[in-house]
């Protein structure tokens, strides 16, 4: 093209091209800047969330100091607030959820990777994952209308009669059979986090090199032995990561828990009696709180955020370790 054009036009074309290159470079720079701004926004959001809550909670922190985290008092009348009971409730309900969800999720992953015939795996996996799609509030409504009466009429009285008098764990299962409380909330939480844990477990189980499993089968191992002695050790960190992921979810779940936990800020050893969690307390109280009360709620929000951040970060790190191992292999 350059050859056919007159000599005088050549510099113009060159100038034109360099102008275009310049324009492109500018556009590229702008484009890159915009994308980077969006990326930085994600980072800043996280820090912003944490800081805004800490800022909102400064009044409570100044008033109660570090004692806020160790006081079991939550008394809006006398303006005395302590975080111990909601923190305890949050941890205990999430732990109950884990006690149920971890073995069940492991069983589901086992079913989906080793037991079920191939044609069944896809549909069952999808169905379990649909559980994760159901909105939290519907778990709460189902829990309140269907599950709570069931627990109140059958499960709680049975626990009362059979476990209530045992030493050590007895006090966990005493109290009037209301059907609401940490046990119910924990159970429904378990159903809610099962899809998250089981899908991580299933995915990481599938990363185990076939040659490892086949070697074990060749030596005469049963399916269970392959899973327990080969698959699980190989994926251990990632499995724990998946469990932590579920734990993080359970800690911050709000609507379902708000319906089922009983919303009472009092210490009770019993899992059958009403209690509360950080998230449920915030959902209930935030719109009507002022001053120190609101500040305390925000400080609780900060605690929840930091705790879930740590748990989820640990989960991520553990999951990353497996993918790194895979990358190296």
């Amino acid at each position: 093209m350059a050859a056919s054009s007159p000599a005088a036009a050549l510099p113009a074309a060159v100038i034109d091209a360099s102008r275009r290159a310049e324009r492109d470079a500018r556009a590229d720079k702008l484009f890159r800047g915009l994308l980077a701004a969006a990326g930085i926004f994600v980072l800043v959001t996280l820090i912003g969330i944490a800081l805004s809550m800490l800022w909102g909670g400064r009044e409570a922190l100044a008033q109660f100091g570090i004692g806020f985290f160790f006081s079991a008092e939550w008394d809006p009348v006398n303006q005395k607030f302590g975080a111990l009971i909601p923190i305890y409730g949050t941890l205990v309900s999430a732990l109950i959820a884990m006690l149920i969800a971890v073995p069940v999720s492991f069983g589901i992953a086992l079913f989906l990777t080793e037991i079920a015939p191939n044609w069944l795996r896809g549909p069952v996996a999808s169905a379990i994952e649909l559980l994760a799609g159901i909105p939290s509030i519907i778990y709460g409504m189902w829990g309140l209308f269907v599950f709570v009466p069931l627990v109140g009429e059958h499960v709680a009285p049975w626990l009362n009669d059979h476990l209530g008098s045992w030493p050590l764990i007895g006090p966990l299962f005493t109290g009037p059979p209301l059907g609401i409380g940490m046990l119910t909330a924990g159970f429904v939480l378990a159903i809610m986090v099962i899809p998250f844990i089981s899908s991580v477990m299933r995915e990481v189980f599938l990363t185990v090199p076939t040659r490892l499993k086949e070697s074990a089968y060749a030596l005469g191992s049963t399916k269970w032995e392959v899973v327990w002695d080969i698959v699980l050790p190989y994926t251990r960190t990632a499995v724990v990561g998946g469990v932590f992921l579920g734990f993080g979810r359970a800690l911050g779940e709000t609507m379902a828990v708000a319906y089922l936990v009983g919303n009472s800020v009092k210490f009770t050893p019993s899992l059958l009696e009403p209690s509360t969690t950080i998230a449920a307390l915030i959902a209930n109280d935030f719109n009507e709180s002022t001053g120190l009360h609101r500040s305390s709620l925000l400080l609780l929000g900060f605690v929840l955020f930091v705790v879930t951040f740590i748990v989820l970060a640990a989960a991520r790190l553990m999951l990353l370790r497996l993918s790194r191992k895979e990358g190296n292999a």
Partner: protein
Amino acid sequence: MNSAVIPAPDAGKAAVERRLYFRRTVVNRLALVLGCAAALFGLVFLFWILWTTLSYGLKGVNLDLFTKMTPAPMSAGGLLNAFFGSAVICLIAIVIGSLLGVAAGTWLAEYAGNKRIGTVTRFINDILISAPSIVIGLFVAIVIVMQFKQYSALAGAIALALLVIPVVVRTTDEMLRLVPGQMREAALSLGVPQWKVTMQVLYRAALPGIVTGILLALARITGETAPLLFTAFGNQYWSTDLLKPMASVPVVMYQFVGSPYESWQTLAWAGALVLTVFVLLLSLLARAILLRNKTSHD
């Protein structure tokens, strides 16, 4: 286990071996049965919850549900204003969230992926995906609602957008990184500027994946209640003002299901049914897009 596979020379050893083998088989059987039971456990609760929603919800599904406003107690009505409010709030959230999310995801995949800041952002983003939604609601309540002294649909949409962003960032990032490097190189070597490469080559290749991410994000925010309580608040009337409180289906459900009025409870369950059907259809659609894309690549 090892002793079991060593050949046994005499009858006594053979008996021990048989017993051991028997025990291993029993343990294995038990584990398999428990595995099946676990899967069944999950399925039972899925169908139980869906059945409850369906049986309670169907009573309230009729034309009025979609054509009338939320009623006063003991009067008849529907959820029109709530459906509209949810649609508006979610739509704005998805638009804001997708734009920012795709942009940030592109930055991670194409520019910052291997730098330290990229690694940190990706890590933080993964955590934000699972962050408690109520905390996001609090954040928007402090930063927007309390500053402007006004509950608003827009504040609700911003809270939901913050839930959309991490989901979209992750899928965009993942999908772009799956696009083969040759495509970039081919386009760049033709002298196409990078922004054009991204917009016209990479996005086209990664589109089904990105759309899946956006659909999944939409499914997630449709049912979100907690972040809206402190931001969009509620409204018993039809409102189109983005700077005023607006009704939304989950918040109306939260209010109505706890009420003493049967008509309200029926409406709450009808809302729950519509919401669940919508959300499940969305996740199925997202899955279908992903699946079709996968098979067409194979």
